[in-house]
């Protein structure tokens, strides 16, 4: 069982959260000309490495806020959680 510290509610069990994937993906800016390749990369390419991974979670059975978690994908150790608008 993972224990995740929601930046708004504190430490809760994994069952209260939903996963949202790689938090480093940036949606291309609105109204800016981009190539098809840039759009494809945004849709299909994510970081999925062994080791430290910055990812999104949602406290779906709690405050329902999205936030960021820095977690190790090999040991599942959680180093840090941040509000959605904070950077590491």
């Amino acid at each position, binding site marked *: *069982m*993972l224990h995740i510290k929601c930046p708004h509610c504190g430490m809760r069990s*994994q*069952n209260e959260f939903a*996963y949202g*994937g*790689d938090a480093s993906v940036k949606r291309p800016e609105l109204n800016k000309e981009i190539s*098809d*390749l840039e759009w*494809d*990369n945004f*849709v*299909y*390419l*994510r970081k*999925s*490495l*062994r080791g430290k*991974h910055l*990812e999104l979670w949602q406290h779906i059975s709690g405050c329902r806020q999205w936030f960021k978690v820095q*977690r190790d*994908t*090999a*040991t*599942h150790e959680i180093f840090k959680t941040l509000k959605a608008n904070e950077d590491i």
Partner: protein
Amino acid sequence: MQKYSVFNLIKNAFSKHQDWDLAWKDPTPKKEYDVVIIGGGGHGLATAYYLAKEHNIKNVAIIEKGWIGGGNVGRNTTIIRSNYMYDDNALFSEFGMNLWRKMSQDLNYNVMFSPRGIINLAHSDAQMNVYTRRGNSMLLNGIDAVLLNREQVKEIIPMADFSDNVRFPIFGALMQPSAGTARHDAVAWGYARQADSMGVDIIQNCEVTGFDISSGKINGVRTSRGDIKVKKIGLCVAGSTNILAEKLNMTIPVETHLLQACVSEPVKPVLDRVVTFGAGHFYISQSDKGEMVMGGDLDGYNSYAQRGNLPTLQHVLTEGIAMMPFLSKLKMLRTWGGIMDMSMDGSPIIDKTHIGGLYLNCGWCYGGFKATPASGWTFAHTIAQDRVHKLNAGYSLNRFNTGHLLDEKGLGTKTWIS
């Protein structure tokens, strides 16, 4: 190599079975090979075997960081099927079914292929419609499919929950009678033994540390046991694809996730089919030893840990008990986890890459075991001929740019949603 036969069994009985040849050797890596396959799992071993057998390329090495059969080929739930709707998936899998049917003879190794049939349960009228459509698509591609109503399902699997007040009543099922199971370890060992006998070097405990690339072409591979000169490399490392892709400065549309499976204590024969729950993600079969072999959802977050977490296991087994209540009486014998290469449309990639001499085989999601022979056969063809075979033409790497996705389940790119 000694042939495995009843005569050799009797002959070796006189020497108390002390004089059998080793099934495969433990060679020191040579300085140069024609082809290096990275990853000694089922797919890598099968690729090397078909390179030697179908294309007469025998100066081949398989490089494996751990030991052969220690990854997903030894961690799956052994289900073999071709009940796909899209042509690319259906024709590829059915080609594989034909290889499965003759595998034991082909490899001179009993892989215990057991075509016992797979039953996908439906729990609503809408799901029956979807299964009717899928079954018709399968029939059009020459794959056997039978639509069963509630009474027919009850005759085959009476131990499922057919009582009145259940949350997900069984409306019927889609069955592929020719689907089944096989002994997963035997598949790895059989391919390894035959590949070795044809001259393939199986090099275990050897980690890839880097690649030697110049002017866009592969020149060699660096390993923990020395540098190897080679012009063609086949990458066949499932959940570790991203780790090696990083060394190649590539990003592959694949995420690595954790999938668990478990077996119960052995019980007397009760279930002679593979059955899947239609209102969630749960599948079950009974092994020859009597254990109930079960699996279901991904753990749901990126992971390289080959061990699982309890909430998912509880969720999966709750589905199992909803489908077959007698499971609640069984004790759990073992649980384990493997790491899946989840592609962005749920279908695999077997293709050339932008680097000359580098070939890619990944993205098998939860369906890699059944694909072992067809994957090895088509990947060997792609490497030997330097072009894809029509069977794996749909499994291209650039389909994510051209839009020719193969999203069989219609789940989109959120691979952890199931």
